[in-house]
C-alpha cells in the first residue's frame, strides 16, 4: 500500500487538485453544471481514497468546493465521507470544518442533523471532543429518532476515545433513560448496543425491562431482535412458570427467516432451561427442526454457522440428533468446510441404532474423488469404531479399506486401526491377518501410516507369523524413514524381541545400531535408552517397553468436558465455530489505536547482519538461503521444546532401571495408580512433570508423540497439551485447557493424553513436593511465570557415579540448561527429568569420550534460566550487537567430523541442538570453508531481562578433507554479571554437541 501511495498517484493528485481549484473559482458555468462537475471530481477522490492512496492533501480544496455549494446534499455527503476518513491524519485542517458540521447538526432537516452528528462523532480526534459533546447532548433529546439514534452511537464513539468525558457528562445515564422511555425501536436497539459495551449485560437484564422488550420484540429489526434476545439470555427467571411464559412468548421467533434471530432464540431457550432437565430436553427436541432447516439452506456460510452449533449440541447430547443422521449426509456440492463439520456430527451422533446407516454412508464418501474427503470419511469410521461399543461390523469396514488398493485409504485405515486396537485389543486376531499382504513397506509413503503399521507389528507380533520379516525392511531402510517411524521401529523391535527373541535378535541389534548412529537426537536417545535398559536389566526392560497391552477405556477428546461447557456457555458466538472458549482466540486491542502505529519492520536484517560483520562470507546467492535459515530457526522454537519433552520421555524410565539416580529422587516413585482419577484432565492432572516422562513407558507408542512429526503451525502446543505436560510445559503455552486455535481433533486416536492418563497418571506422592499447581482455571491466559524456587532447582547434579556402565563420569551434570527453564512450580518435575536425562546422555558419552570433569559440580549457576520462547527481532539483535562490546571471546579447535556435524542438514542439527537449551538462532550460513552463526538467549523473567548474543565463526581447515578446523566464539551480554552463568550453559551445550557429533 505504501508503494502505491507514492508511486502512481502523483499525477492524479496534482490533476485533481487543479480541477478542484478551478471549480472553486470559475463561475462561468451554470450552477447545475458546476455541481455535476464537482460531483465527478469528488467521486474520483473517493475512489482513490478507497484504493488507499493518500488524498489528504486535497483537504482545503475539497472543503471550500463543498462549502460553496453547501445546499447540495450529494456533495455534502461525499465531503463528510472524505472528512471522516482523513480527519485523524490532518486534525489541523479538519478543525476548519468543525464549524460547518456544528452548524449542520442544528439544521432543520433531521437527515442533515443526523448526518452531521454522525460525521462529527466519527472524526476520531481527541482534541475535538469539546466540539462533539454539545451536539451529542442536544442530539440525545432531538425530536427525530434518526438524530437520537445517531447521538446514542456517538456516546459510544466518545467513550472509546475518552471514557472520562462520557462519565463527566453523565451520558450513560441519559442513554439509560432513553432506553427506558424512548418509543423508537432503533433508538432502543442502539441504547442496548451501547450499554452492553459499557457494562455487563447481566446488569441490564431486569425483569420489568426484559419483559417490556420481549413484549414488543416484533417491532424491532432483525438485528434489534438479536440484541434484545442476547440481553434476555442473561435474565434469570424466578420461577418455572416464568420460564414457560418466556418460552411461549418467544416460540414464534424460532420460525424466523433470519438465522441470527433463530440462533439467538435458541440461546435464550437453552439458558432458561439449563437447570430444568425435562424442559431442557423438550427444548432440545423443539430446536431440532429449525436447526435442520437452517443447515439445509443454500447459503453455505450461515448453514456453516448453524452446523457448528449442531455439532456442539450433538457432542453434548448425541441422542437428540440420533434419528436425524440423514440430515447430515453430505451433498455433492457442499463446500469442504460444511462436509467436514457434517462428518464430525455424524461421528458424534453415531449410536447402536444408526451406526449401520452412518457407516454405510461414510463408506460411500471414502470413494470420493477428493482424497481429503475420502480420508476424513475413513477417519470418521475409525472414530465411530472407538465410540460405539459394538464395533464388530465397523472394524470389518476399516479392514475393507485396507483392501481398497488406494494408498490414501490404506494409510488412513492403518492409522485408525491402530487406535481401534488400543481400544479393543481383542479385535487384533481379525485385524492382523492380512497385514503381510498389504505391502506397506514399499507401497505406503505416509509416515503416520508406516508408524501405525510398525506399532501393530510390535504390539501384536505374536499373532503375525512373519512379523520380524515384515519389520525387516523398515530396519534396513532405517535412515530413510521419517523420525516418527524410526522411533516406532525401535520400540517395535524391542517389543518383538521380548515376544520372539530368537527370530528378532539380529533385527533388534541392527535397529539399535542404526538408532544409536542416528542424527536425530530423539531417535538416538531412545536407542541408547533401550540399549542400556536391555543391558542393565532385561526383565525391567520388558516391564517398561513391552508390558501387556491394557485396553484404553476411552480416548481424550479434542475438547475436554470442562472446555466444552465453557464453549456451551458462550453459545451463539465464535467460540462455537472455533471449538474453544473465548479466551483462547480473542485478543482485544485498544480502539482507534492503530492509526499512528508504525509497521513492524520486516525481518530483513539477516543478510545485512552477515554483510555487515563478514562481507567476505556472504555469497550473493546466499541471501535467500539465509532467510530460509532464519525461518527454520524460528520454527525450531516449538520443535526444540518438543524435542525436550521427548528427551524427558526417555529420561524418565531410567530411574526405574537404575534404581534411581540420586538427584532424580522426585522420579523414583513412579507409581501407576490403579484407576485414572478425574476425567481426561487426569493426564494433565499430573502436571507436576512426571506425566510427560511416561510417554515411552508402558504404553509408549512413538507415533503418539508429537515431537518428531511436523506439527501444523497453528498447533505447536496442541501436542504439548496432549502429551499431558500441561502447565509444566516450558514457556507460556499455558494450561492444558488452552487448546490452541485449530487444534485438530485428529489426535483423537493418537490421544497420547488419554494414554498417559491411563497408564500413568502419576501418583500424587512423588509428584507432591514438586508441587503441581493443580487444575488451572479454564482456558486462562498463560500464567505469569514465577521465578523458579531455589530448592526445587531442577536438575540433579548427579553426584554419584553414572548410572550406566558406559559412563563412570558424572558428566557435566546439571548445568545443561534443560532444567532451569522449567518455568513454573509445576514444571519443576520436568526440569528434573531433563536434568536427569542430560546428565545421563552427556555423562555416558562423557565417560566414553573425554575424561569427565570432577563429579557433580554443584550446579553453580542455577539461578540463570533462559526464556524458552524468547523472541528477539532481527533489527533489535543487530542494534544490540553493534552497541555492546564483546564480553567474552574464545577459540577452540574442532575435528573434521565435528565440522561436518555442525554444518550438516543445512546447519539445522546444530541450531536445533542449541534451541533445546533455549539458545535461539537468528542467522546461520556462509560458504565453505567459513561459516557464521548468530545466536541469542534471554534470561527468563520480567523484561527487560538480560540478553546474550553469540557469534560463532567456524573455519574449516582450508585444506579440506575433513581434517577439522577452528571455532571462534564471541559473546556479548547486556548484563555482564550473568555472563558466567550463560557461558556455562553455552559451553555445556556446545561441548555436548561436539561430543555427540
Amino acid at each position, binding site marked *: 500500500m505504501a508503494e502505491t501511495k507514492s508511486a502512481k498517484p502523483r499525477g492524479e493528485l496534482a490533476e485533481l487538485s487543479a480541477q478542484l481549484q478551478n471549480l472553486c473559482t470559475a463561475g462561468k458555468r451554470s450552477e447545475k453544471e458546476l455541481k455535476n462537475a464537482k460531483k465527478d471530481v469528488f467521486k474520483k477522490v473517493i475512489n482513490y481514497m478507497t484504493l*488507499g492512496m493518500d488524498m489528504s492533501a486535497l483537504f482545503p480544496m475539497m472543503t471550500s468546493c463543498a462549502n460553496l455549494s453547501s445546499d447540495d446534499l450529494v456533495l455534502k455527503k461525499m465531503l463528510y465521507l472524505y472528512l471522516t476518513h482523513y480527519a485523524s491524519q490532518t486534525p489541523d485542517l479538519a478543525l476548519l470544518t468543525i464549524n460547518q458540521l456544528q452548524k449542520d447538526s442544528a439544521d432543520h432537516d433531521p*437527515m442533515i442533523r443526523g448526518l452531521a452528528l454522525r460525521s462529527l462523532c466519527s472524526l476520531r480526534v481527541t482534541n475535538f471532543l469539546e466540539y462533539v459533546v454539545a451536539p451529542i447532548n442536544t442530539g440525545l433529546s432531538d425530536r427525530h429518532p434518526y438524530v437520537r439514534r445517531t447521538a446514542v452511537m456517538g456516546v459510544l464513539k466518545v467513550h472509546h476515545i475518552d471514557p472520562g468525558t462520557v462519565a463527566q457528562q453523565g451520558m450513560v445515564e441519559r442513554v439509560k433513560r432513553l432506553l427506558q422511555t424512548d418509543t423508537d425501536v432503533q433508538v432502543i436497539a442502539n441504547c442496548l448496543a451501547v450499554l452492553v459495551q459499557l457494562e455487563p449485560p447481566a446488569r441490564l437484564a431486569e425483569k420489568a425491562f426484559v419483559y417490556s422488550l420481549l413484549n414488543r420484540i416484533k417491532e424491532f429489526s432483525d438485528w434489534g431482535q438479536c440484541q434484545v434476545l442476547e440481553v434476555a439470555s442473561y435474565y434469570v427467571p424466578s420461577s418455572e412458570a416464568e420460564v414457560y411464559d418466556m418460552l411461549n412468548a418467544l416460540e414464534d421467533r424460532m420460525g424466523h427467516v433470519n438465522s441470527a434471530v433463530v*440462533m439467538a432464540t435458541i440461546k435464550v431457550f437453552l439458558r432458561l432451561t439449563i437447570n430444568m432437565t425435562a424442559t431442557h430436553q423438550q427444548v432440545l427436541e423443539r430446536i431440532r427442526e*429449525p436447526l435442520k432447516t437452517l443447515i439445509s439452506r443454500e447459503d453455505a*456460510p450461515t448453514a456453516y*454457522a448453524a452446523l457448528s452449533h449442531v455439532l456442539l449440541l450433538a457432542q453434548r447430547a448425541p441422542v437428540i440428533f440420533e434419528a436425524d443422521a440423514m440430515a447430515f449426509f453430505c451433498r455433492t456440492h457442499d463446500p469442504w*468446510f460444511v462436509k467436514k463439520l457434517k462428518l464430525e456430527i455424524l461421528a458424534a451422533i453415531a449410536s447402536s441404532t444408526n451406526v449401520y446407516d452412518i457407516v454405510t454412508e461414510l463408506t460411500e464418501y471414502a470413494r470420493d474423488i477428493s482424497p481429503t474427503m475420502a480420508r476424513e470419511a475413513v477417519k470418521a469410521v475409525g472414530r465411530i469404531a472407538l465410540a460405539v461399543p459394538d464395533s464388530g461390523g465397523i472394524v470389518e469396514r476399516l479392514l475393507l479399506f485396507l483392501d481398497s488398493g488406494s494408498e490414501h485409504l490404506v494409510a488412513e485405515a492403518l492409522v485408525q486401526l491402530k487406535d481401534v486396537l488400543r481400544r479393543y485389543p481383542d479385535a487384533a486376531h481379525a485385524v492382523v491377518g492380512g497385514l503381510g499382504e498389504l505391502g506397506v513397506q514399499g507401497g505406503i509413503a505416509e509416515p503416520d501410516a508406516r508408524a501405525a503399521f510398525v506399532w501393530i507389528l510390535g504390539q501384536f507380533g505374536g499373532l503375525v507369523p512373519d512379523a520380524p520379516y515384515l519389520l525387516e525392511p523398515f530396519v534396513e531402510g532405517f535412515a530413510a524413514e521419517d523420525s516418527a517411524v524410526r522411533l516406532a521401529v525401535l520400540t517395535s523391535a524391542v517389543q518383538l524381541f521380548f515376544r520372539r527373541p530368537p527370530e528378532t535378535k539380529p533385527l533388534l541389534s541392527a535397529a539399535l545400531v542404526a538408532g544409536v548412529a542416528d542424527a536425530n537426537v530423539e531417535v538416538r536417545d531412545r536407542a541408547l535408552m533401550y540399549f542400556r535398559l536391555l543391558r542393565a536389566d532385561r526383565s525391567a526392560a520388558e516391564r517398561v517397553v513391552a508390558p501387556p497391552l491394557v485396553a484404553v477405556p476411552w480416548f481424550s477428546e479434542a475438547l475436554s468436558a470442562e472446555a466444552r461447557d465453557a464453549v456451551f456457555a458462550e453459545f*451463539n458466538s465464535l467460540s462455537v465455530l472455533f471449538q474453544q472458549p473465548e479466551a483462547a482466540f480473542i*485478543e482485544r486491542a485498544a480502539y482507534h489505536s492503530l492509526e499512528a502505529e508504525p509497521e513492524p519492520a520486516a525481518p530483513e536484517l539477516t543478510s545485512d547482519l552477515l554483510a555487515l560483520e563478514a562481507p567476505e562470507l556472504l555469497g550473493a546467492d546466499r541471501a535467500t538461503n539465509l532467510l530460509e535459515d532464519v525461518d527454520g530457526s524460528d520454527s525450531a522454537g516449538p520443535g526444540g521444546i518438543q524435542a525436550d519433552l521427548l528427551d524427558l520421555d526417555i529420561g524418565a524410565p531410567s530411574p526405574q532401571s537404575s534404581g534411581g539416580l540420586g538427584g532424580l529422587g522426585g522420579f523414583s516413585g513412579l507409581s501407576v495408580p490403579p484407576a485414572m482419577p478425574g476425567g481426561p484432565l487426569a493426564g494433565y492432572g499430573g502436571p507436576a512433570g512426571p506425566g510427560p516422562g511416561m510417554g515411552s513407558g508402558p504404553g509408549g507408542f512413538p507415533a503418539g508423540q508429537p515431537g518428531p512429526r511436523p506439527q501444523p503451525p497453528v498447533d505447536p502446543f496442541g501436542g504439548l497439551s496432549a502429551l499431558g505436560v500441561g502447565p509444566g510445559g516450558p514457556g507460556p503455552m499455558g494450561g492444558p485447557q488452552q487448546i490452541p486455535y485449530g487444534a485438530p481433533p485428529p489426535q483423537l486416536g493418537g490421544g497420547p493424553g488419554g494414554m498417559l492418563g491411563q497408564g500413568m497418571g502419576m501418583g500424587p506422592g512423588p509428584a507432591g513436593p514438586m508441587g503441581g499447581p493443580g487444575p488451572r482455571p479454564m482456558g486462562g491466559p498463560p500464567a505469569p511465570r514465577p521465578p523458579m524456587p531455589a530448592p526445587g532447582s531442577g536438575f540433579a547434579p548427579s553426584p554419584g557415579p553414572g548410572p550406566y556402565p558406559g559412563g563412570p563420569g558424572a558428566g557435566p551434570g546439571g548445568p545443561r540448561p534443560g532444567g532451569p527453564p522449567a518455568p513454573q512450580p509445576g514444571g519443576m518435575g520436568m526440569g528434573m527429568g531433563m536434568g536427569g536425562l542430560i546428565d545421563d546422555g552427556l555423562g555416558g558419552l562423557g565417560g566414553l569420550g573425554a575424561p569427565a570433569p570432577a563429579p557433580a559440580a554443584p550446579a553453580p549457576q542455577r539461578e540463570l534460566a533462559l526464556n524458552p520462547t524468547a523472541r528477539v527481532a532481527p533489527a533489535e539483535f543487530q542494534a544490540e550487537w553493534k552497541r555492546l562490546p564483546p564480553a567474552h571471546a574464545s577459540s577452540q579447535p574442532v575435528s573434521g567430523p565435528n565440522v561436518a556435524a555442525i554444518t550438516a542438514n543445512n546447519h539445522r542439527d546444530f541450531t536445533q541442538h542449541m534451541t533445546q537449551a533455549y539458545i535461539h538462532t537468528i542467522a546461520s550460513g556462509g560458504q565453505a570453508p567459513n561459516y557464521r552463526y548468530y545466536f541469542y538467549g534471554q534470561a527468563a523473567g520480567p523484561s527487560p531481562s538480560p540478553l546474550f548474543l553469540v557469534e560463532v565463526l567456524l573455519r574449516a581447515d582450508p585444506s579440506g578433507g575433513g581434517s577439522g578446523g577452528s571455532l571462534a566464539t564471541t559473546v556479548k551480554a547486556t548484563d555482564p554479571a550473568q555472563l558466567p552463568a550463560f557461558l556455562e550453559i553455552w559451553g555445556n551445550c556446545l561441548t555436548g554437541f561436539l561430543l555427540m557429533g
Partner: protein
Amino acid sequence: MISQFYILSPRGDVIIRKDYLGDVPRTSSEVFFRNSKFWKEGDGEAPPVFNVDGVTYLHIKEGGVQLVATTRANLSPSFVLEFLRRICTIVKDYCGFLSEDAIRKNVVLVYELLDEVVDYGFPQSTATETLKQFVVNEPTVVAPAYYQAKPLFSLNKGPTGVFKSVLETTRTDGKRRDEIFVDVVERITCTFNASGYIASAQVDGAVQIKSYLAGNPPIKIKLNDDLLIGKRDAPYGLDARSSEGHTVVLDDCNFHEVANLDSFDVDRTISLVPPDGEFALMNYRTTHGFKPPFRLHVSVDADPNSEYKAVVTLKLWCEVPADKSASGLEVEVPTPRYVQRVHCDLSDAHASGGKGGPAGGGVAQQAWDYNEKGHLLRWKFKKCPGGSEYTLRARLTLEKPYGASLRSEIGPVNLRFTIPMHSASRIALKYLQILKKADKNYNPYRWVRYVTSSNSYTFRT
C-alpha cells in the same frame, strides 16, 4: 461489533472500505486475502469464518466479490454473516446487480448506503424501503454482460434475473414500470443407492418476492389448499395417516416478518405489504411426496474384443411432466485413475461423436467430453423434455485388464439441472392479489415463476 467492513474484488483489490472501531490494522484486507486465497486445509476453500492473530474474519462471496467483516469481539457468527448477506441484498436492490463492475460504478452510492446501514459497526436501518429516504445518489445500473447477450437467461433464475434498482419506483417521469415478481425456487437433494432406490431425498424451497410497486400496496397470496406443514399441523409427528389427502406436505417452514398469517391456517392465504427489493417470504423443507425428475441406470461390461477395454452404458429417463423440460442438464461420471481414454456414442443415430462437439440434431442437443486430468466424463444436454429417454455408451480404454472392481469404481454419478416452471414439492401459488382500492386502473405486472434445480442429485453405483 464489527471493526471493519470491506468489499474485495476477485483480485483482492479493496473496492469499498469502512473502518469503524479502529482496533484492527488497515492491512487486514491483505491478511484476509492472502489467507483466503491460499487456504491450506481441505480443498483449499477458506471457511466463512477464520481467525488470524486475534482478528476474526467473516466473509461471504457473491457476484464474484467478497464481503468481509473483521472483529476482535466474540460475536454471533450467524448475526454477522446474515448481516453481510443483507448488505449484499441492499446493494443488489439499489444497484440492480452485484458485481465488481456494478460496485465500482456506484462507489459513492454504496458508501452512502453503508453509512445508513452501519453506524460504528452496529446495524441500523437495513430495510430497503426505509433506506430510500436517506439516499440521494443516483444508481448507475449495470446489467451483467451475459444477461445482455442472453436475455432469456433470466427466465431460469429466480428474482435475481431482474436487474433493476428499487429507486426506479420513485421515478415520476412516466418510465416507471410497476411490477412484482414472485418466485418459487426449489432445490432438490436426492441420493439413489446402487439398486436405483431413493436413499435420501429432500426439497428445500423458498418463495421469493422482488417488488417494484410504488406506494407499497398490500398483496395477498394463496397457496395450495391441501398443504400440510409438519409441526404446525401435526404436532405429534407426520405419518401416513395425517398426511393422507394432502398433495403437499412440508416438514418445516419459516416466514418473513412481514407475513400476516392470521388466515393461513384457515385457507392458506398470506397477506403482506411487500417491502421494496428482494426478500424470501417463506422458506420450507420437505422430504415427503417427492417424485424424482430423473432416473439413471449405469451398467458396466467387459469388452469382448479387448481385455483392456470396458463399456459403460448410461440410460437416462427424464420424468418431469411432458409439457416441461429441463435445461442445462449435465451428467458427471467420475472414472478411476487407470482409465486412459474414453470414447462415447450418443443414442442419437446422427451423433458424430466428435469430442466435445455438438452431437447432431434431434430434440435434445447432447454433447460429451472427458476431462483426463480430473478423470471426469461429462454428458451435457441443452434441453431435455419431459418423458424423453437417452442412452450414452462410453468405451473406456484401461491401463490394466478389466476387472469386476471397475463396477464399483465408476461413479457416483452426479446430475446438475434446472427445470423452469416446475416445483418438485408441488407447492403452488393459487393466486396473487394486489389490494389497492384507490385506483381501479392500477394493474401492475405480476410475475409468478417456478424453478426447480439440483442441489445434489447423485446416483451411487
